[in-house]
């Protein structure tokens, strides 16, 4: 991999000089940047000196924090009016919250560069006709991780067929996931599946399930639509699994790290999870399921639609930036093909069509990586972003306690959804949405 990086760096230098930026184009310009920190994201920043060398500009990273802290800082910055820095990390699920902070990148970035991205990603990065961010190679959609040996066990297969009347194979629908999860579960040592149970996470999971059941989360005017029959079916799925003890009892308090650690401990049969975990799960020093790990595309709901709640990280340029051209050039550089190749070499999914092809080609011969990529590629085809409203996160905070209440049987599904819809409706009215 080191060899590959070096090779790529040289290629990029040449490329950077040939296209886009000219040498010394931004001499003397300093770009202040606020970037997302964390091990998974840092490898890319090692490339920044190349851009500096090619353009003569300097990048000054004035903030490096994790995603949630960064979100807090951006909001504080907007409040304090200190938005004179230039480049910021952004996320598709959060971007709608900062309507005034970031500038429209259309016109600042060459059209043929934009055309190189996956169309759906650009669509999700465009809010109200403005392209507010360029996606980096950190595209997230969930696929189904599973333990392979469960499907090669003769005794299990026979028992399952006798009980449910169909063959035990890797599930393709959420109904099958439910059957199998209940079938595999043997608490407290083994569970059929698990799901993220708190904060925005459970709402995201529920949202994609509503879509997979053929329902809508919001109406076109953003009034709540999730208390429909489809919405109830979707929530019922979570409730049934919990009641059947097919998921760990603590699942309503799980966030992504708990899920990852749980599946890696080998006590979970099926786990819908993000691409970032593939490396962790297949590393024998970190995970017990290494060597026994299968990955399949996300299953489908009763409407024949795959779940596919997705999001991606990217970079934006602020409205207040003094030198937008230089900032846009940096953003372009950090999301160009070579940058994406470097980032996706470590596991994360790219957002450029050419890089998708490249990683697929590169993975040939590595059976596991090919399987992972195929599963995520298939899921990504029908993936969808969160509803494009600045109030999404706020709505999730009203909805998730109600979902939890239904899962824990504090309320019935109908009551919980009615309460959640009422609270969201009230909030939307108060905010003057309709």
């Amino acid at each position, binding site marked *: 991999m080191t060899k590959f990086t070096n090779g790529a760096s040289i290629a990029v230098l040449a490329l950077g000089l040939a296209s886009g930026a000219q040498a010394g184009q931004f001499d003397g310009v300093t770009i202040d940047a606020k970037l997302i920190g964390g091990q998974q994201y840092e490898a890319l920043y090692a490339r920044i000196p190349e851009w500096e060398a090619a353009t003569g500009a300097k990048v000054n990273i004035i903030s490096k924090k994790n995603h949630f802290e960064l979100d*807090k800082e951006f*909001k*504080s910055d*907007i*409040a304090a*009016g200190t938005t004179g820095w230039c480049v910021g990390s952004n996320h598709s699920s959060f971007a709608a*919250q*900062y*309507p*005034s902070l970031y500038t429209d990148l259309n016109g600042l970035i060459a059209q043929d560069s934009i055309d190189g991205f996956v169309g759906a990603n650009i669509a999700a990065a465009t809010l109200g006709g403005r392209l507010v961010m360029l996606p980096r190679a950190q595209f997230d959609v969930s696929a189904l991780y599973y333990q392979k040996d469960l499907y090669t066990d003769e005794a299990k297969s026979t028992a399952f067929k006798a009980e449910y009347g169909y063959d035990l194979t890797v599930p393709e629908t959420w109904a099958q996931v439910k059957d199998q999860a209940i079938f595999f579960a043997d*608490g*407290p040592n083994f*569970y059929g599946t698990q799901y993220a*149970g*708190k*904060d925005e996470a459970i709402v995201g999971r529920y949202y994609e399930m509503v879509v997979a059941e053929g329902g809508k989360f919001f109406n076109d005017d953003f009034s709540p639509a999730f208390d429909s029959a489809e919405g109830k079916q979707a929530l019922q799925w979570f409730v049934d699994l919990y009641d059947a003890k097919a998921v*760990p*009892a*603590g699942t*309503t*308090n799980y966030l992504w790290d*708990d899920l990852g*650690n*749980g599946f890696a*401990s080998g*006590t979970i049969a099926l786990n819908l999870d993000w691409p970032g975990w593939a490396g962790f799960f297949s590393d024998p020093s970190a995970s017990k399921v290494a060597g026994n790990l299968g990955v399949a595309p996300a299953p489908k709901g009763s409407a024949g639609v795959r779940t596919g709640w997705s999001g991606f990280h990217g970079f934006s340029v602020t409205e207040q930036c003094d030198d937008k051209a230089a900032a846009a050039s940096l953003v372009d550089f950090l999301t160009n093909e070579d940058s994406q190749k470097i980032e996706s070499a470590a596991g994360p999914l790219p957002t450029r069509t050419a890089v998708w092809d490249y990683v697929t080609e590169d993975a040939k011969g590595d059976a596991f990586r090919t399987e992972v990529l195929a599963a995520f590629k298939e899921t990504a085809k029908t993936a969808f972003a969160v509803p494009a409203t*600045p109030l999404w*996160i*706020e709505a999730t*905070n009203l909805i*998730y*306690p*109600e979902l*939890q*209440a239904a*899962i*824990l049987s*504090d309320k019935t599904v109908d009551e919980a959804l009615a309460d959640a819809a009422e609270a969201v409706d009230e909030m939307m009215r108060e905010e003057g949405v309709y």
Partner: protein
Amino acid sequence: MKRFKMPPWLVLLLPAIIILSAVVLIPLVLSLYSSFTPYKLTRPESLYKWIGTFNYEKALGDTKFWAAFGRTILLLTIALNLEMLCGLGLALMVSKVTRGQRALRTAMMFPMMFSPILVGFQFKFIFNDNVGLVNNALQSLGITDMAIPWLVDGKLAMFAIIFAEMWTSTSVFAILILAGLFAIPQDPLEAAKVDGCTPIQSFRFVTLPFLMPFIYIAMAIRSLDVARAYDIVQIMTNGGPARRTELLWTLIGRTGYVDAKMGYANAMGYISIFLAIFFTIYFFRKLTAARAELGMGV
């Protein structure tokens, strides 16, 4: 220049007053103002719209707010009392040790070295129902064959939070009480012994009154600080599931920063400040009374 000479106590207090005004008072005035506006972080212009007491009315009429309020008082009461009792017991036990006491005292303060944010992660993993330390231990010892949902069940989740909170803070009580124990004059104790008091009697009538000021100091300081346990609760449960562990701080933090509704969050914050003031004054009164009893002046 010479006409006004500041009294010495004011000179001594001035640095404290200046720093606290700059860092606490001025920001507080700003947030007090914002609590009368529909201030939303992402829409700075909303800071200039006056809406009177709307936010306060909304908070006071919100059952979620009152539930969190009540739960916070419950947590404060239980946690503080238990910490005090455990701290007292621990201090008494440690004070009786003659050899290796310095190391023991350091070990006793071990939890104080842990950042609350670390404690949050630590106990989230320890109390994890599937692969957590506690359930693993209970199952290995054959005490239970169930995965106990420590962080989900309403009562257990509060217990887990109180346990984490106690784990970090009992040492604070213990060390302050220990310092008090060392400061106790020996004469009255010996006099009590000569008078034929049992150890329990001399503890009750000589040691304890002397310790009370220390206990109240610790109580008051902890009751202020407990509000900073936000980090622990936020990471362990974030007020969930289904608002079973929602405390004022998680509610306010989420409203202010995640929902960006700073005006409303500040209104709730101000109501909860009264809670803190109440606790502070209460313990201060107790402290003054205990001191008066010992003749230490007001």
